[in-house]
């Protein structure tokens, strides 16, 4: 009986490792190949590089214009995070606290955007009319707009768990609505705000469809689109392509490792009702 249990325990551990390796193998392949010479990388296998070629990264930063595209991606991601967090927090807070018929309707109207897709082609007309085509501010506004529905949903359900008695105490002490929100309620929302910021950053960093439709000059491209373009030009130099992939993914992986807890809580919110 004890023997059988030990065998079963060994079995599930083994299984977990096999599955993890299936997920890791393609990623390790890219990592290893980014350090190889062009000739070594041409074989595209999982062997370790003979000697790590750090020069690949320098070369790819220069050839792939990664400096500019990194700054573009940073600008788009950070601006969207700040704008989206501010707008969504204010809106979700009021919609959660004040539930008259109008507010209920507005909430549902906003969160329905989680499901409905963007109609890109007429959106071009709107962007043209607003003089936002091919502009950095235009892309930031688009990223903000598309992430409003899910973020409002996340914050709304968090606010409904904060007791409104705190608000009442503050109002009796003479706090204005703005002071109540920024000084009292917002600090209490820290966990959900971190989740929103992390998810918005990751989504914006990874997205490439908006620039595909709305940015035609390559000097405004984010890193993801630039790496794809680089792949088209240097597809024979796998070591360089891999180095570019590693550099483009590094920020999201670092953020994932630091903020895993917040990402998971955001992704599971609403799906599981405790």
């Amino acid at each position, binding site marked *: 009986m004890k023997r059988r249990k030990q065998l079963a325990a060994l079995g*599930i551990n083994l*299984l977990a490792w096999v*599955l*993890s390796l299936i*997920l*890791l193998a*393609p990623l390790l*392949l*890219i990592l290893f190949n980014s350090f190889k010479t062009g000739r070594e990388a041409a074989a*595209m296998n*999982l062997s370790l590089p003979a000697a790590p070629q750090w020069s690949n990264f320098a070369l790819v930063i220069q050839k792939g214009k990664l400096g500019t595209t990194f700054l573009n991606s940073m600008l788009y991601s950070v601006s969207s995070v700040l704008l989206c967090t*501010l*707008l*969504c927090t*204010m*809106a979700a807070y*009021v*919609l959660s*606290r*004040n539930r*008259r018929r109008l*507010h209920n309707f*507005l909430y*549902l109207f*906003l*969160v329905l*955007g*989680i*499901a*409905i*897709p*963007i109609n*890109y082609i007429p*959106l071009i*007309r*709107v962007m043209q009319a607003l003089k936002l085509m091919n502009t950095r501010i235009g892309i930031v506004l*688009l990223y*903000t*707009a*598309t992430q409003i529905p899910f973020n409002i*949903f996340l914050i709304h359900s968090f606010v409904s768990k904060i007791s409104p008695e705190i608000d009442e105490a503050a109002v009796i002490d003479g706090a204005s*609505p703005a002071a109540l929100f920024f000084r009292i309620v917002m600090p209490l929302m820290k966990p959900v705000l971190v989740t929103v910021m992390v998810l918005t950053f990751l989504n914006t960093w*990874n997205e490439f469809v908006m620039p*595909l439709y709305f940015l035609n000059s390559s000097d405004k491209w984010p890193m*993801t689109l630039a*790496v*794809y373009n680089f*792949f088209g030009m240097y597809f024979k130099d796998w070591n360089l*392509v*891999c180095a570019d992939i590693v550099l*483009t*993914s590094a920020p*999201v992986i670092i953020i994932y*490792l630091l903020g*895993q807890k917040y*990402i*998971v809580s955001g*992704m599971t919110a*609403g*799906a599981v009702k405790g």
Partner: protein
Amino acid sequence: MNKNRIYPTRFVFGALLLYSVLFVLPSVMGLGYSFTDWSVYSDSIHFVGLQNFATAFSADYNYTRMLVNTLRFTLVTTVVKNAVGLALAVLLTKQVKLLNFHRAVMYLPCVLSALIVGMIFKSVLNPKIGLLNTFLRGMGLNFLASNWLTDSKIAFRSVMVVDIWKGMGYIMTILIAGIMSIPQTYYEAASIDGGSAWQCFRHITLPLLVPTLTVTTVLNVIYGLKVFDMVYSLTNGGPGFATEVMYTGVYKEFGLGRYAVGTTLSTIMTLVMLVAGFFMIRHMVKGDGQEI
């Protein structure tokens, strides 16, 4: 106290304005443009009735292919991701060593851009030097080594498998949270009654997980109908039209300058998703005392 004074509606305006102008307005305009001949070739726009819809649903066109592919993609990835995600979730709520490491690894592909994942798998699935074919040949399974992304018979299957590889960790994570919310006492009672692991799964885990599985299913369906990134980066709809889905179709029509047809395809998807979305949203907002 006066709620309207303490919680002013103007706090909603910023988000509402951006969302309405850049998200909702194009969809509404799209519905209008679907009845016109809007294109890059002519400055004037005319009303053409249901002509674009007739094109979109006509049998002799590649549109049928897109529609069928989109539905097939949605069905297959939804079923497989749920099944694999559930198996992984059950496995990773057992007493496995380095549990958090395994969970973190399984979720890792979800945080990578679909464009990056597409490029990674273009390498892995490369017929000559790719990891998969090298592995198969090494095992003596030469006959299994294929042109994964360029053979029109299997390309779409390859795309679906890569998408499952990327997305199953997400479903697993949601289901793990679902399993953790099942009270431990049920399992204790079952073990006192001598229930086997399978019986516990069949009669406790599975029935109590139905609400969570409903959510993962709806999420998968919405994702599957909207899919673009993965197909674009792996095959861009090719070879030929073998892997074309609705949103790669929209992008192609856009590239060809046939704006009205592209918009019509988008509008059809919007209408479908409004219905699916309504049910999902109703389920999602139920918990926090929201009336609907």
